[in-house]
């Protein structure tokens, strides 16, 4: 029983830790907000779900407590819904405020911050249709 738990839990925990550290390193090293959003999502959804699963194994098989398992499932489900929502709202607000995405060399991908604002609009003006710089 104990051995089985260890065999199941350790690989999951290591996977979760890889998600955590990878997301955090990406957060410090990536060039701009939009790429960092991607790195943060890895931690927020992947890391939380996998480590939550490890805790769930312990809650069910060691503590045998249904309440703890339900709370863990609530946390995991809630994170699964809110983390992408927060990322979306953040990216949209950043676009609307005119933050221009950059590529790996630090070159801006759009010509002006007005274009970024236009990209963020839910109904872009037909007159000033955005052309992406190739």
């Amino acid at each position: 029983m104990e051995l089985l738990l260890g065999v199941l839990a350790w690989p999951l925990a290591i996977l979760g830790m890889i998600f955590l550290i990878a997301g955090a390193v990406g957060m410090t090293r990536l060039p701009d907000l939009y790429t960092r959003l991607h790195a943060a999502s890895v931690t927020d959804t992947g890391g939380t779900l996998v480590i939550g699963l490890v805790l769930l194994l312990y809650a069910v098989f060691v503590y045998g407590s249904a309440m703890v398992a339900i709370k863990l499932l609530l946390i995991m489900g809630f994170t699964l819904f809110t983390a992408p929502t927060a990322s979306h709202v953040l990216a949209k607000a950043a676009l609307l405020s005119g933050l221009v995405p950059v590529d790996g060399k630090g070159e801006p991908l759009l010509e002006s911050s007005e274009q970024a604002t236009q990209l963020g609009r839910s109904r872009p003006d037909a007159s000033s249709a955005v052309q992406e710089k190739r």
Partner: protein
Amino acid sequence: MMQSITGLYNYWAVIILMMAGLYILIARYNLIKKMIGLGVFQTSIFFLYITLGKVSGGTAPILTDTVPAGQLAAATGATAPEVVYSNPLPHVLILTAIVVGVATSAVALALAIRIYEAYGTIEDDEIRHIDLGDIDS
């Protein structure tokens, strides 16, 4: 020596935080920044109290009937023949202090808004200049 470092580290960190808050209060002229410094100071005091209430090996002061089973102790490494609780009294005092602290900071922020409406600035020194009469500072 090593033991006194780990044993007193919490107090030292609390003192550094307190002094950081005090420095913001003294050296920053912006009223809202001063409030933020006060918030830093306040939270460090909470830490001091909670540090005093902690008993090592203790658990949160919520009564349990279920002493951890043997299987549990083997799995988590926690061995608790009888339950030790941390001191609940500092928790009660700090619970009150947090709520009162937010109430006072709400009043202070309302004062800052009124000052901004009356003077057009929330910088301490500019307000003093306006009060003394040399507007063009």
